């Protein structure tokens, strides 16, 4: 066991060396940790590694829509210094610039909507591609062989499908669970694959991005409330068993409750995954801050340990997000007995 962990540590450290910019080691204390934030945030280019002064990056498209200029396409290389790959206001291109914090801005200050394919968008499409490939090859197994024992991709996906159907959907939603099973499976697998692929060295922090968790939470919110039955809305606007004066307090609380549920989903996933990435990168940063090999060895061991924990967190967070989604849907579609106490 110890040997395996040590081997893993060496592997990780070899990967992570490419992942950290050697120039951080020479700069001020803030420079030494800035790569952490640089990693967990979205970016207009995908930076993989730096060898001396050579940056290995994937330039990404910058797409902007504005009411006066319409839809415009640029490359992220248009907005940066070609040697240092640094963004800045001084590298403005056709009225737009990307500042040091990787924000797109317009020189004349007019409003616009950014639809760029950022690092996280690319990561998202990779996750979706991997998921679709695995799921479709699993489905293909059943198409080819009929309802037989699973093999290959089907052997990976089938237990998850059965788990989501039986343990999450059926238990949390009740008799009407069948309609929601496909959404719950997709949700679980997307978050799980996103969490796991996000742990790979060089990968983007996709499921730890608030836009991603927000979109998923909003979808859950829409599905929950669209499927809400009479009892569900009655519970919100005329909570049974509560005296009328109390309703003045209860109803606003219930209405806020409608929104806090998906909000909690959004924040939980975002925080859990981002925190994991920050902790891992923080341990790596220790080696640069102390400029010590001994600390490097210890931090590599710690990084390996945290990485193993993160594998667990990746699964737990996917499970929790799906479980709570199923519970919210279950609350919306459940048929209450009217004398039930709430």
């Amino acid at each position: 066991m110890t040997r395996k962990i040590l081997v893993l540590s060496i592997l990780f450290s070899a990967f992570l060396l490419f992942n950290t910019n050697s120039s951080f080691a020479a700069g001020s204390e803030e420079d030494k940790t800035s790569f952490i934030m640089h990693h967990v945030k979205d970016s207009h280019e995908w930076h993989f590694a730096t060898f001396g002064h050579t940056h290995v990056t994937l330039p990404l498209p910058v797409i902007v829509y504005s009411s006066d200029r319409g839809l415009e396409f640029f490359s992220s290389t248009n907005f940066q210094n070609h040697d240092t790959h640094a963004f800045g206001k001084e590298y403005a291109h056709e009225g737009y610039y990307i500042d040091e914090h990787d924000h797109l801005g317009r020189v004349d200050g007019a409003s616009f909507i950014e639809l760029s394919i950022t690092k996280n968008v690319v990561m998202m499409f990779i996750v979706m591609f991997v998921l679709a490939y695995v799921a479709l090859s699993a489905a293909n197994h059943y198409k080819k062989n009929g309802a037989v024992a699973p093999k290959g991709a089907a052997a990976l996906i089938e237990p998850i499908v059965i788990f989501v159907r039986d343990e999450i959907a059926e238990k949390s939603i009740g008799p009407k669970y069948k309609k929601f099973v496909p959404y719950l499976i997709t949700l679980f697998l997307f978050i799980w694959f996103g969490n796991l692929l996000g742990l790979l060295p060089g990968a983007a922090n996709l499921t730890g991005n608030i836009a991603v968790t927000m979109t998923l939470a909003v979808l859950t919110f829409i599905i929950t409330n669209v499927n809400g039955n009479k009892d569900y809305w009655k519970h919100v606007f005329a909570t049974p068993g509560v005296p009328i004066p109390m309703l003045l307090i209860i109803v606003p609380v219930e209405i806020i409750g409608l929104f806090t549920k998906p909000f909690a989903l959004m924040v939980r996933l975002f925080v859990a995954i981002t925190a994991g990435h920050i902790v891992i990168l923080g341990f790596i940063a220790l080696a640069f801050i102390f400029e010590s090999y001994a600390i490097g060895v210890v931090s590599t061991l710690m990084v390996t340990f945290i990485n193993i924990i993160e594998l667990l967190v990746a699964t737990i967070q996917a499970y929790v997000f799906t479980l709570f989604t199923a519970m919210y849907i279950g609350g919306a579609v459940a048929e209450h007995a009217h004398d039930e106490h709430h």
Partner: protein
Amino acid sequence: MALGLSPFLISIGQTEKSHIMDLITPGSGLIFWQLIGFLGLLFILIKFAWKPMLAALEERESTIENALKQAEIARNEMANLKAENEKLLAEARLERDNILKKAQEASNKMIEEAKTEAQKQGAQLIENAKAVIETEKKAALTEVKNQVASLTLEVTEKLLKKNLADDASQKALVDEYVKDLKLN
């Protein structure tokens, strides 16, 4: 959101503040692509992956359930058959025992009868043999007597022929013969 968090951000530096604001500000591009991508993924996976898969799973589960039920029925039938077989077997055994017992009795009886018959016949044979022997014996004795009588006659005749010259001797001889005869 920014308003809610600002009291906590006062004590930290401007760079950290901007980092945190960046982290909790959702990017419009990402939301847009995420929405399109996720809905597209949802559509494709539901249509081409989850529906066929869930249908196949249900089919398999019902097949297994049916198979289990069939197995249960078959097992019950087997148990019934076995019980019936055992009953038949027990009956057959009983029958066999009865037949064997009867056969034994019959054979014993037959042996007994045969023995009695044989004894009877043996006795009869012995009886007959004895009777035959007796008859033969009598016949032989008669023969012997006849032979003796004829021999005697011959001898007498010869003696008579030879020795009847002398009266005294004749008389002595006759006496002697008579004496002999008596002794015989």
